[in-house]
C-alpha cells in the first residue's frame, strides 16, 4: 500500500488535477443555467431588462413569484397538473400491479400471449393521428380523463414490476392461499408490502411522466381552462417570442423575469423529489437492463 502512494508519478498527478478540473467545469456548466434563472427570478425588472443580472440577484424581490403565483390561469394549471400527477400515478400503479402480477405467475396460461402483446406495441406504436382520432372517438378530449387514461400503462414499467414479482417465493403465495386469501388479497396484502422499493421506482417514473407529459395534453386538450402547466409554459414562454423580438415594453414587471419564474415554479416539484429520483431511477435502470 505504501509503495503505491510513493509510486504515484507526476504525470499521474497532472492527469488527476486536469480530470477534476474538467469534471468540475462540466458540473458547473450543468448548474449555471439554474443559477442565472434563479437570480433573474429574484431581481427587479430594471436590472433584468437592462441585462445586468448574471448569477446573483440585483435589487432582490419576490415580486415575480407573487405575480406568477397570483395569476389565476397559472394557478389553475398548477392545480390540474398536480391532480393529474397524483390521480394518474395512483391509477397507473394499480393498473400496473394488477396486470404484472398474473404475468409473473406460471398458472396464468395467457402469460406468453400477453407478454408478446405488450412487446409488439412497445416496438410498433400507432401513428399519432389515428391515435388522436381514436381517443376522440372514446370521448377523451377536453376533459380530465383524457390526461390520465391514454397514458395509464407503460410496457417498460410492467416489465420491471413483473420481473420483481417473479422473484417472490412461490411458497409465500401458496401459504397465503392456504390461509384462504384470494388472488387480489394476496397481491395487496402479501406481495405489495414486500415490494415497496419497486413500487417507489415505478411510482416515481409514472409521476414524473405525468407531471412532464406534453404531447398527450397538446393533442387532447384544446380548452385553455384545462391547460396543464407544461402547456401553459409552452404558450407563455415560447410562443411569446415574437413579442420580445418586437421589443414590446411590458408594464411594471419584466417579461423575461416572469418567464424564468414560471419555469422555476414548474421545475420545483421535480427538484424536490430529485434525491429520491436519483436513488430509485438508477435502480430501475439496472433492473430494466438486466431483465429487459
Amino acid at each position, binding site marked *: 500500500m505504501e509503495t503505491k502512494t510513493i509510486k504515484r508519478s507526476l504525470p499521474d498527478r497532472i492527469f488527476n488535477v486536469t480530470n477534476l478540473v474538467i469534471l468540475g467545469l462540466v458540473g458547473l456548466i450543468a448548474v449555471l443555467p439554474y443559477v442565472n434563472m434563479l437570480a433573474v427570478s429574484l431581481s427587479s425588472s430594471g436590472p433584468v431588462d437592462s441585462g445586468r443580472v448574471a448569477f446573483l440577484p440585483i435589487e432582490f424581490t419576490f415580486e415575480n413569484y407573487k405575480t406568477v403565483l397570483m395569476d389565476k390561469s397559472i394557478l389553475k394549471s398548477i392545480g390540474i397538473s398536480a391532480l393529474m400527477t397524483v390521480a394518474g400515478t395512483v391509477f397507473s400503479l394499480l393498473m400496473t400491479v394488477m396486470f404484472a402480477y398474473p404475468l409473473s405467475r406460471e398458472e396464468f396460461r395467457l402469460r406468453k400471449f400477453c407478454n408478446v402483446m405488450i412487446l409488439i*406495441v412497445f416496438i410498433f406504436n400507432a401513428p399519432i393521428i389515428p391515435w388522436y382520432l381514436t381517443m376522440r372517438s372514446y370521448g377523451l378530449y377536453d376533459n380530465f380523463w383524457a390526461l390520465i387514461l*391514454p397514458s395509464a400503462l407503460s410496457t417498460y414499467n410492467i416489465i420491471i414490476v413483473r420481473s420483481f414479482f417473479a422473484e417472490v417465493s412461490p411458497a409465500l403465495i401458496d401459504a397465503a392461499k392456504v390461509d384462504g386469501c384470494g388472488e387480489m388479497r394476496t*397481491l395487496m396484502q402479501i406481495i405489495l408490502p414486500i415490494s415497496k422499493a419497486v413500487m417507489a421506482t415505478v411510482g416515481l417514473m409514472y409521476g414524473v411522466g405525468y407531471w412532464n407529459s406534453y404531447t398527450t395534453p397538446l393533442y387532447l386538450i384544446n380548452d385553455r381552462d384545462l391547460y396543464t402547466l407544461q402547456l401553459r409554459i409552452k404558450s407563455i414562454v*415560447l410562443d411569446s417570442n415574437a413579442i420580445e423580438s418586437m421589443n414590446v415594453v411590458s408594464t411594471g414587471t419584466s417579461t423575461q423575469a416572469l418567464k424564468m419564474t414560471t419555469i422555476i415554479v414548474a421545475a420545483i416539484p421535480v427538484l424536490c423529489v430529485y434525491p429520491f429520483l436519483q436513488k430509485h431511477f438508477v435502480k430501475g435502470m439496472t433492473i430494466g437492463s438486466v431483465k429487459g
Partner: protein
Amino acid sequence: MRKGSSVAAGLKKDSLWQSICKHKGLYLMALPGFIWFVLFKYVPLVGAVIAFMDYDIYKGIGGSKFVGFKHFAHFFQFPEFGQIFRNTAILGAYDVLIVFPIPIILAILMNEVRNAKYKKAVQTAVYVPHFLSWVIIGGIFTTLLSPNTGVINNLRQMLGLDSIYYMASEKHIRGILVIASIWKEMGWSSIVYLAAIAGIDPALYEAAEIDGANRFKRMLHITLPTILPIIMTMLLLKVGNFMEIGFEKTNSFMNSMNQESIDVFDTFVYRYGLQNLQYSYATAVGLFKSVVGITLLFVSNALSKKTTQQSII
C-alpha cells in the same frame, strides 16, 4: 401465439378453460390491463388504415373512400419532403456523431475520480436535467439565449459583440438542439457505462500497473475495450431509433423563424394533421416514418446479434 399455448396446455396440466376456472382471480386481474392495451394501443394501430383512404371524420373508417397509396405519392412529390428528410438525417447524424460519444467520455473520466464525494457532487449536478421536460428545457434555452435580456447575449455585449437572436437563427438552431440534448442527457446516459466500468475486475488494472501502463494507457487498453460491447449495443440502439428525433424536443425549440432547419416528421404530422386537419395525409407521413424506423431497428438488431451476440429489442 394463442393457438400454440393452448395446444401445449392440452398436452400437460389443465386446458386454458380449466385454468381460467381454477384461477379466476388471476384472469380477472389481468382483464383491465388487457382491455387497455386493446383499446389504447391496438385500435389506433388498426386505425392507421386511414393512411390509404380519404378519411372523412363524419363518415368514419367504414364510409371513407379507399385511395391506395395516393397520400404517400403526394408526400414524396412534396417539396417539404426533401427538407424534412434532410433535417432528420442531419439531426440524427449529429445525435450519433456528437451527442452519443460524450456520455462515454464522461463515464471514463468519472471513473478515474478517487474522491467519492466529488464524484457524487458532479453526478448529482449532471443528472438533474434528465428529469425536466423538454418544454422546460426549451424555456430555459429560450430565455438564456434571448436577444435583449438573456445572459449569453449580455455577455456578448459586454465583450463588445453584437447580440444574436439565436432562437430565430436557422444557422444556429441545430447546434442549439445538439447542445440542449447533450446538456439534458449526458449525465443520465453515462450511468449505463459507469455500471459497466464498475464491473471490471480491479486485478486487470493492477496487472497493467505492474507492467508499467500509465493511467491513460489503462483507460485506452482496459476500460475502453471492456465496455466496447455495451457501447456497440447503445450505438446500434441509437441507429435503430434514428428517425426518432423527438417531437417534444423539436416542438419546444421551434418557431416560425427557425422551422425550416428543424422541421422533422413528427412536427410535420402535427401541423398537417392537427392544424390543417388533413388526417389521412398526416397518417400516411407518420406511417412512412414508422415503417422506415422499424426497418432500421430490425437491421441494427440483426447487426447487434452478429457483432455482440446480443439482441437490442
